[in-house]
């Protein structure tokens, strides 16, 4: 005798839109979630809500004006974007950048990394419900913005670097204030750690969440902390040193489990390594000019080149084609780390709960301005 299955209620998958206007999607990311109860069955990541056509715009700007546009790509790490672009053009033109300029660029890039990680830490912790860390991290970020303001007058979009070097030398006493900031930061990192690192709830919310293997991470083209969290040793600063990174000692933290907690630990360690780099750069800051010998009218020779740097979010690359005749690029293409890392979001969130989705969006640290450009 066959036993008939008892009639059940219909169960439907629930489709919800997380974003583009949602408090935790860090801008205008839209994630369409198919839910079975609270578990994510499938997800569709939709981008493009703040596409501004920056790459196309560059084709109608001259080489120096483009620096201003790069500010707006990853607007929480403008200095890094400036650096990536300027170095690419310098590579195309084969311009020698003075050593002092390379040192100051390194300091700026590392300050920017700390500022960007502060923003990440604050919002990531906030997504998981720890609201105090958010304000603590922003308090320190504010100090960095003050330093940038003193250096170049701007707090968010710096436009501070030039092809061939820097527009400005550092103001007098600025290096002392950067050192003072480093000391402050040394004291504050344990504050974040005290609130999170050994917190049971934080551990339960991040350990084993969003695990991705090193092979998968590489296949997806992840870079930066999401890749290193899975134990893959890849840091452009070490592999293909740019600016002055080959002259400093620092180590690249690696994770073992590839989960959200590892990525968190890595970024915290990167705070310390960045401080270490900044201190070394200030100690050995050479004298000399900050601007190399660059023609008044910048006109790189015909050709194409790709150059990548390690932005706070991963590998930031610029691919530039110059036809050698015009004062603007023939084509400029950005390899944005946020965009590539966002590829990892869908595999990460499938199978997790709704609450983890926000944690995972946070852990890959995307800036939507950089994703869409």
């Amino acid at each position, binding site marked *: 005798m066959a036993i008939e299955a008892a009639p059940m209620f219909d169960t439907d998958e*629930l489709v*919800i839109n997380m974003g583009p206007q*949602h*408090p*935790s999607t860090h801008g205008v990311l839209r994630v369409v979630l198919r*839910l079975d109860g*609270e578990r994510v069955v499938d997800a569709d990541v939709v981008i493009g809500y703040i596409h501004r056509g920056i790459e196309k715009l560059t084709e109608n700007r001259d080489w120096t004006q483009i620096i201003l546009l790069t500010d707006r790509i990853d607007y929480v790490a403008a200095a890094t974007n400036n650096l990536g672009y300027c170095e690419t053009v310098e590579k195309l033109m084969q311009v020698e950048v003075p050593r002092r300029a390379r040192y100051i660029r390194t300091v700026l890039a590392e300050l920017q990394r700390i500022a960007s990680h502060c923003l990440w830490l604050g919002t990531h*912790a*906030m*997504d*998981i*419900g*720890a*609201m*105090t860390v958010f*304000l*603590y991290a922003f*308090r320190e970020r504010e100090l960095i913005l003050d330093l940038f303001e003193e250096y170049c007058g701007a707090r968010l979009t710096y436009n501070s670097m030039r092809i061939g070097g820097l527009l400005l030398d550092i103001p007098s006493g600025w290096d002392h204030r950067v050192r003072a900031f480093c000391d402050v930061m040394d004291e504050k990192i344990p504050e974040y750690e005290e*609130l*999170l690192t050994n*917190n049971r*709830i*934080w551990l*339960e*919310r991040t350990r084993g969440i969003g695990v991705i293997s090193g092979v998968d991470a590489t296949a997806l083209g992840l870079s930066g902390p999401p890749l290193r969290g899975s134990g893959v040793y890849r840091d452009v600063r070490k592999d293909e040193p740019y600016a002055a990174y080959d002259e400093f000692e620092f180590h690249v933290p690696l994770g073992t489990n590839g989960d959200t907690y590892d990525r968190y630990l890595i970024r915290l360690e990167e705070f310390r390594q960045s401080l270490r780099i900044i201190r070394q750069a200030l100690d050995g800051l050479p004298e000399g000019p900050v601007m190399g010998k660059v023609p008044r009218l910048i006109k790189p020779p015909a050709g194409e080149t790709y150059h990548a740097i390690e932005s706070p979010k991963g590998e930031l690359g610029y691919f530039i084609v110059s036809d050698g005749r015009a004062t603007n690029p023939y084509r400029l293409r950005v390899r944005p780390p946020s965009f590539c890392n966002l590829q990892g979001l869908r595999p990460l969130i499938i199978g997790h*709960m*709704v*609450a*983890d*989705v*926000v944690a995972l969006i946070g852990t890959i640290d995307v800036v939507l301005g950089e994703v869409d450009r």
Partner: protein
Amino acid sequence: MVETLVIPLLKIAVLLNAVLVSVTFMTLLERKIIAWAQSRLGPMRVGPYGVLQAVADPIKLILKEDITPAKADKWMFTLAPILSLVPALVVFSVIPFGAEELFYITDINVGLLFIISVTSIGVYGIILAGWASNSKYPLLASLRASAQLISYEIVVTMTLVSVILTAGTLSMVGIVEAQQEAGLWFGFVQPVAFVLVLIGGLAETNRNPFDMPEAEQELTGGFHTEYSGMRFALFFLAEYANMIVISAVVTVLFWGGWLRPFPSVDALALLDLIPGWIWFFAKMFVFLYLFIWIRATLPRYRYDQLMRLGWKVLIPIAIANVVVTGVAKVLL
């Protein structure tokens, strides 16, 4: 006539106003305390040190447009906030703020049972709000809420059984008097129960780290996403009123209500100069402060982890605590 009608009504009016006013100031207190924890100032604009913020907020909420979504179930949508606020206020009728009859509205012999059952009704408010909004995020939130509140209700109720066993009465006044006779606050006799009720209380009032139903970062505000204006304010009032209720209940059950510290030690008799209701409010304030402090410190649990904590950890402990209390009661 005066004895049976006028005086109780007067007391109710005073208490109701006191609760509602203190709730509005609770929001200010919360913002201030969290601000201090986060090294900022908090509200500073309205009045000196922002104290009038507590007045400005309700005015703003009253003046705001009260929107009912077109697809919402209108009656349920209106009923839900009322259902969550009223029970929170009704509970105050049995809470003794002092020893004299002046300080409580009534002392019924099943006071604790009354509190447990009335606060349970509040859950309906949240469930109905999520359901009636006819919107996905509130629905998810209300599903979470129903599961969470029911599980943690079991924890709290189970735990309260051990307190009842210790006190031998269900009357709120009786429980405090039992502590006076024992010369010891029950918090020292039943520390496990105290911790359980505190955790369960946090969960039942949807406070961090158990604020799943309104998890702002995930569910964009949760069950009150679709609410605005005064109806939204009612949910807010209910949440804070519930916080005060939990603090008051914990004070009565575990920290001697209106009793001074160490009620049996005569050397401290000087402390009797301070009236009982001040002791009561001081103790209550400590717990309110604790709730806010926890919110400023901890991240949020995930929904399934919360349920695991409730069913696999807290409920077994609560049951074990009842058994141990019962055995001890029989043996001693």
